[in-house]
């Protein structure tokens, strides 16, 4: 489901206009992003938890230079799905559309 379909469905469900729905979703995204940037985790019931993690500095091989490179630490987003969601989708047959 792409973003447009998401907005369509959500506006249908909530009765808001599409423009309004889009704004709301973007506000949500902004707040989530801000929290994650502050290094805080965010739990959303029934969906899961977003958090950030700093990966360690590591050494990797770069074939272009034929040399090893030190890749600096990096902060990445992690998501762990809620237990209920995990169970529900576990044995579904996937159809990517």
């Amino acid at each position: 489901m792409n973003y447009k379909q998401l907005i369509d469905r959500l506006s249908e469900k909530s009765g808001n206009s599409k423009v309004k729905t889009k704004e709301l979703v973007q506000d949500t995204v902004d707040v989530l992003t801000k929290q994650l940037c502050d290094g805080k985790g965010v739990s959303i019931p029934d969906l899961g938890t977003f958090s950030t993690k700093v990966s360690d500095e590591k050494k990797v091989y770069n074939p272009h230079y034929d040399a090893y490179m030190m890749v600096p630490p990096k902060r990445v987003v992690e998501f762990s799905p809620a237990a209920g969601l995990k169970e529900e989708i576990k044995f579904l047959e996937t159809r990517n559309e």
Partner: protein
Amino acid sequence: MSEKITFKDLVEQISRQSNQSQSSTNSFIHELVQIIEGGLKKNGSVSISGFGKFELRWMNERTGTNPQTGEEIVIPGQNKVVFKPYKALREDVNKPYASLKARVLGDTASNAVEEKEEPVPEEAETIEIPFIAAKAKEVRKTSVPVDELLIEHDNPHFPENDPFATLVADEDAEASIPAILPNEENVAKEVQKAGSFKWSYAAAVIIALIAFIILFLMFQRMGDTSAPATADQTEQLLTPVEPSVVPDTDATAEPDPTPTAQPEPTSPLQTEFEIESHTVVPGESLWSIAEANLGNPYLWPIIYQLNGDIITNPNQLPAVAELDIPIISDPENLNEFEREQVALGYFALYDWNRENSPEDARFFLWAVGVFSPELLEEPPSEVDPDDLTFALNR
């Protein structure tokens, strides 16, 4: 992760941001979650612009062990939800670290092999045993090996039969050997670079070694074993010393290249991609599919390579075609197999472009070399020599 904010706080913040009541925001988020869940179940993926994409991924059946009983169990195939943050979110979150750049280390692939063979100081205790054992036995046999030692280090005044004198000689030996080994060019270079700071490490290691040797000698005197110990003296000494001298040239790095820092080739070789399928939507290109699904648009040739029978023209995708898309766990650190596949993809594109747009073909050949220099050296089929020169020199 240090702290979490509560759902209540989250709702409050969102309602402030969007000028809505908290109760309507609360129900909005619940609706959003339901839609996301519904979308995952129905379509297998949900994307939220500016944030990321939720996806179902099928994990194949595998065996694992029950951590409590140690028993082997079969974990059945199942779906899991993965979340792929989009670029905007990735960059925002990584802002505090964005200024850090990867830097090239001096060692090349061939050096790394050497490094791999060298013991890491943390493992030194296990490795030392044969080394010290050999040493202790030499002390028993005394004269010949000790002589060698003394000659080598211009230090002929130690009484031959005193084991502790040998130890002192050892210390000298260890301190001087890296410098007097012209055949170990790299080592010598590193030693020069390392300067006095590194020598303090070397000294610390040597002191630790001596302590070990003394302990072992005491022990050895009580017990009694005899075995030939004629291995080359210099080599024996060299092995434990080297790691303290060789590691990264920068002064902040810890003195030991830990095993975790070892190159990828140690991981089991992959021979096949996990495949997911993707239906082409009007407006998509291989580039955009690679960006959304693989995480790095430059990997698109991999899709072309895997779907050669469907895609006749890489610039034009057949409408509503089902494409096989490989699953790449970390698009920023490809493993060897993945790199090779991308390179093969670029090579296939090179072939295609030679027939259809000869002007651009050489750039694809160059890209082959970026991902896999080996493939460029031994191309799977004929290449134009001019293109090859271009690819090699660019």
